């Protein structure tokens, strides 16, 4: 399972980095979106994968039984998903506005302010 997820993460990272170096600005944004998904999966795997061990404290016990799944990585991922969703929405709106005011979606053409 770890191997399969590791390969998935690697593929996602590869795809997102490929998209990030594209000239079309929408592709760059898609690259960022993919990247955040790759990171979420990375946290999931790094936190440790266990099957079927629900992290509930048994009745009467004070601590979690050994071998349960750690719920915290999922809480982290949930936070990260919410943040990346908001940021992605903003980025798409910004890219749309940038395309309107500059008249191009080519990243290489956004050089108007770079001349010395």
């Amino acid at each position, binding site marked *: 399972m770890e191997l399969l997820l590791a390969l998935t993460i690697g593929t996602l990272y590869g795809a997102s980095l490929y998209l*990030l170096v594209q000239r079309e*600005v929408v592709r*760059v944004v898609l690259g*960022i979106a993919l*990247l*955040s998904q*790759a*990171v979420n999966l*990375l*946290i999931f*795997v*790094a*936190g*440790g994968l266990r099957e079927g061990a629900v992290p509930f404290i048994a009745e009467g016990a004070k601590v979690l039984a050994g071998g349960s799944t*750690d719920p*915290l*990585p999922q809480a*982290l991922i949930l*936070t*990260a998903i919410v*943040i990346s969703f*908001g*940021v992605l929405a*903003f*980025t798409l709106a*910004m*890219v749309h*506005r*940038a395309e*309107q*005011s*500059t008249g191009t979606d080519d*990243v290489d053409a*956004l*050089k*108007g*302010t*770079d001349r*010395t």
Partner: protein
Amino acid sequence: MSAITWVLLTPLVTALACLFSLRSSGAQRFFAVGGMVVLLGAAWALMQEVAGGTVAVLRFGNWPAPFGIVMVADVLAAIMVLVSAIIGLAVVVYSLVDIDPGRQRHGYYAFLHFMMFGVCGAFLTGDIFNMFVWFEVMLISSFVLMSLGGERAQMEGAVKYVTLNLLSSSLFLAACGILYGQTGTLNMADLAVKARTFMSPELLTMTAMLFLAAFGLKAAIFPLFFWLPASYHTPPVAVSAVFAGLLTKVGVYALFRIFTLIFTHDVGFTHGLLLVLAGFTMATGVLGAMVQFDFRRLLSFHIVSQIGYMVLGLALFTPLAIAGAVFYVFHHIVVKANLFLVSGLANRFAGSFDLKKLGGFYAKAPLVALLFFIPAMSLGGVPPFSGFFAKLALVQAGLSGESRFGPWAPVFVAVALGVSLFTLFSMSKIWAEVFQKTAVGTDPRPAQVPWKDRVLLLGPVAALALLTLSIGFFPQYFFGFAERAAAQMLQPEIYIRAVLGPGV
């Protein structure tokens, strides 16, 4: 109740008050300025609380330390919060004239305060994942400030700024995930204890490099700085000034924090790498600035170069060097924000940021010339201004031979001194072009700006210049705080005990 609560609540409540009074310009301005004044008071109270050497800790929900999120204020954090509040107040007063009604109606003041909320939170948090969240609060507000208005230049800058900052956030998050997977904790004090026992040195170094890339991008160190001079000169001056003063320094602060608290297992490698990066950052920044003729672009390249000095102090890793670096950070925040505000004065009085078109300010607006001269000389490191003492501490630390880099440290001191000379060259270039030569475009006409506006524009600039002067004339007082911060940073046990309790 700890002042930490006030430092965090004030900008949040102010931002919400501004959001609810979007239609009323007067109410918004009142809340915006009032909020910054209260924040400054809270930051001052926090400084008083921790100046004696106690580390203030606020536990959310009163959960014991490694389980709940903690906010921690040591001297370093208190200094950063205080200087941020000072810059915030200066910029918000400047904004009263500089920000047009359109931007104001669309929530400029609200987002400025949301950004301050994120910045203060990032300085105070004691939890690495929580720091990521504060960074995002700060970033999303800064994205809005950067693109608010939607002018062509702004949008071009915003695309680069947003993309690269999001890339850096992803690296940061991935590094947090790996650290958690290996140690099972996110509390920074707990990490400082556990990272070394739970992680192999190689894996720990690898994680450190991920954090270095993430924070390096935010702090704009070599070779990750290219987004900064491509975007900082595009938004309104007030926004540029607060970005130039604060945002990159949040990255520097994060580097200070993790490379004194968590990643000190292999100082020879990690801090050696920081040392080399510091050298390149100083040199490339200043060389990039030499060919620039746009006021704010030139200053942006100097931000990069100055970041190098702060990282140099961290890399040398001796008490004097760290104290010098901390002193450098707060001197720099004041000076750099001020220089950006001066560039705004030039634009307001003569209608251009182009050094070739500007001119005649010394004859027509001598006060502006004086207000440029103070921070510019300070940036160049001329005594008796504040920058001189900041550089002196770093040079002494490098030459003392106490650092573990032996004969290499003086090499980087030499680079620092050379860069300082080039900085002075850049400042005299601005002086010659803007202040001495006769104007090629239009003459500066301060009188065209109503006197009330002039007071609001010049007031903050003069106040910051006065602060620069007082740092320069009473360096011992300010350096004392930096030394206390450095002493705490080099004895992580103090921080760890304050957070986790005396048993650790």
